[in-house]
């Protein structure tokens, strides 16, 4: 009998091009996603060494980080450096012949939303991108992770990556989620449990009833933040929901090819006796709606809790918490539900999909945001935006007082005009609450889309379960 394998083992083994005795492997890459920020130096490297893109048909580029999200963006990008970076991608995509969705294309959006939406991301594949949130694609049972620009150049030139295998971690979320609790709360709960370095050296496989019951959108949210827990990648075994999502997408297989793919995808699960190096179990019913209070994604607590006292931590974290409370302008003991906010951002590769917009609009229906609140919703792609308009969701946002924007990374990372001003405080559906992440001296509280909508109405961090 063969040794039982994890899902990670199976995908890894299927992609080995060459392995050295010390365990260093050359791994084949099925899909290479590219955006404008981490690729210009890689394309320049190819030019300087006279190399080509080995598999342009497996390379997909889309500008997202620098792109303005206002209606007038067809007039061009004001910021010169941003414009140069987007123009560089336009040129590189054309010169090297890779698949490209320019700003003017309705299919443009955040690279991690466009990939699955267009059917580029499929179960069992290896997917890389010069972006840490590539972990998102693990929701399909694809081995997906972020790489640096030198590795982007390596993949462009060779369609492979030099890798050593990570360890296997199983994160099981048992039982059902309670009302008001979402995929975002699951992924924050896991990071709260393991810490931001808890996943370092591991590939996580998420499983359990609560994960199985999530939609594909929810699963992408969970895997998206695997990196915030330090993991190389997050994975979820494909099932009927996965196949259903993939079926009929522009670049997913058709006809007999589909049947062949489906038969293979059905073998992609961790064998019953497969061994994991680490196992974390969380009861789904124990997860409440969560918010972050500090400047690391591990700084997470239930909305019903209070800001912690730095002295209750240990080691280097004591100083880090002192620093983050000062940065965040918070006092130990302050109730999280009394923290006033002035900005709400709904969007990003974590929570910019149709289901996220639906969840927020459910809360906002027939309500108005608090006076003086700056609230924006930024669909993850042009197609998500179009669908939301067709479903009447856009209208709910507009009537509530939200700005209804065009697709892009927007305020998740402030490389474009959407930024926090110094001292502004934002309830954000994005993935990082680092110092300065959403703008210089801006303050970020990470929440789910429903919690962000609730905060927009009340003007403070709010328990979504209390909004009727």
């Amino acid at each position, binding site marked *: 009998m063969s040794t039982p394998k994890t899902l990670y083992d199976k995908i890894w083994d*299927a992609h080995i091009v*060459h392995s*050295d005795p*010390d365990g*260093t492997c*050359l791994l*084949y890459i*099925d899909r290479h996603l590219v955006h404008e*920020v*981490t690729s*210009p*130096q890689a394309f*320049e490297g190819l030019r300087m060494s006279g190399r080509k893109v080995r598999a342009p048909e497996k390379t997909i580029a889309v500008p997202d*980080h*620098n792109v303005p999200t206002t209606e007038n963006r067809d007039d061009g990008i004001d910021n010169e450096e*941003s414009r*140069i*970076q987007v123009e*560089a991608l336009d040129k590189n995509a054309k010169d090297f012949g890779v698949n490209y969705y320019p700003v003017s294309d309705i299919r443009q959006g955040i690279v991690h939303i466009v990939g699955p939406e267009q059917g580029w991301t*499929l179960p069992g*594949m290896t997917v890389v991108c*010069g972006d*840490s949130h*590539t972990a998102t694609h693990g929701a399909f049972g694809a081995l997906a*992770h*972020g*790489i*640096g620009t*030198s*590795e982007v*150049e*390596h993949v462009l030139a*060779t*369609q*492979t990556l*030099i890798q050593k295998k990570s360890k296997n971690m199983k994160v099981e979320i048992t039982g059902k989620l309670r009302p008001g609790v979402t995929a975002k709360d699951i992924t924050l709960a896991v990071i709260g449990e393991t810490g931001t*370095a808890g996943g*370092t050296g591991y590939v996580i496989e998420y499983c359990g009833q609560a994960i199985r019951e999530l939609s594909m959108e929810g699963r992408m949210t969970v895997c998206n933040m695997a990196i915030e827990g*330090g993991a190389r990648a997050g994975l979820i075994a494909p099932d009927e929901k996965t196949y259903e999502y993939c079926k009929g997408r522009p670049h*997913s*297989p058709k006809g007999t*090819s*589909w049947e*062949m*793919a489906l038969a*293979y995808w059905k073998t992609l699960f961790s064998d019953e006796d497969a061994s994991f190096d680490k196992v974390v179990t969380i009861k789904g019913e124990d997860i409440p709606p969560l918010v972050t209070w500090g400047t*690391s994604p*591990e700084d997470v607590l239930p909305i019903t809790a209070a800001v912690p006292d730095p002295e209750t931590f240990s*080691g280097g974290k004591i*100083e*880090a918490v002192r*620093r983050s409370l000062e940065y965040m302008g918070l006092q130990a003991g302050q109730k999280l539900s009394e923290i006033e906010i002035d900005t709400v951002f709904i969007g990003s590769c974590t929570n910019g999909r149709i289901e996220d917009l639906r969840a927020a609009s459910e809360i906002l229906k027939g309500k108005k945001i608090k006076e003086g609140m700056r609230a924006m919703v930024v669909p993850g792609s042009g197609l998500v935006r179009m669908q939301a308009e067709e479903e009447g969701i856009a209208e709910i946002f507009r009537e509530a007082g939200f700005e209804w924007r065009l697709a892009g990374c927007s305020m998740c*990372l402030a*490389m474009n005009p959407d930024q926090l001003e110094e001292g502004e405080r934002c309830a954000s559906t994005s993935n*990082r609450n*680092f*110092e*300065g*992440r959403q703008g*210089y001296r801006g303050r970020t509280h990470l929440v789910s889309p429903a919690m962000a909508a609730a905060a927009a109405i009340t003007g403070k961090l709010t328990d979504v379960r209390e909004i009727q």
Partner: protein
Amino acid sequence: MEKFEKLAGVAAPMPLVNIDTDMIIPKVFLKTIKRSGLGVNLFDEMRYDREGNEKPEFVLNKAQYRGSKILVAGDNFGCGSSREHAPWAIADFGIKCVISTSFADIFYNNCFKNGILPLVLPEDQVDILMKDAEKGANSIIEVDLENQTIVSSDGEVFSFEVDPFKKHCLLNGLDDIGLTMEKEDHITAYESKASQLFPWA
């Protein structure tokens, strides 16, 4: 890539845990299409005020640390985004070795592509080197990659682990792409096998 063999120099102490890549190089500097020139913006928001004046209390602004070749940092250094601008900025500043109890995965890999040695040591040893670093200009730390040793200013010798392949590339300044291209036959063979097994991919 520049070779890394031995290094001796002053180490800058940064005991803060979870120093993320947004701190190392804020996103405003990611808009470059070049690799060079980022050293001046290393740790920008910690290092300068809004007007661009140096904050005198920041470690790299202190006279004894301005020429640091080594950084001793708190746990989980380099977490967050995959931006290779972080190691580019560190190398451009002149730092060629970062010591911590742990590094984020992508940052760790990116260092090796840029002639930087990221060193993982146990907490008690990092504590000793952190104290060494805090002594400033007279405290020289020596790193020897070939022999995998680090010598504190008091002559204490610690050994460290490093992946043999990464060590080989760093010692010889080798370009990964060139090495992989030597395996062209293996790649072609894989592609032909995969086109049978996974034609949809």
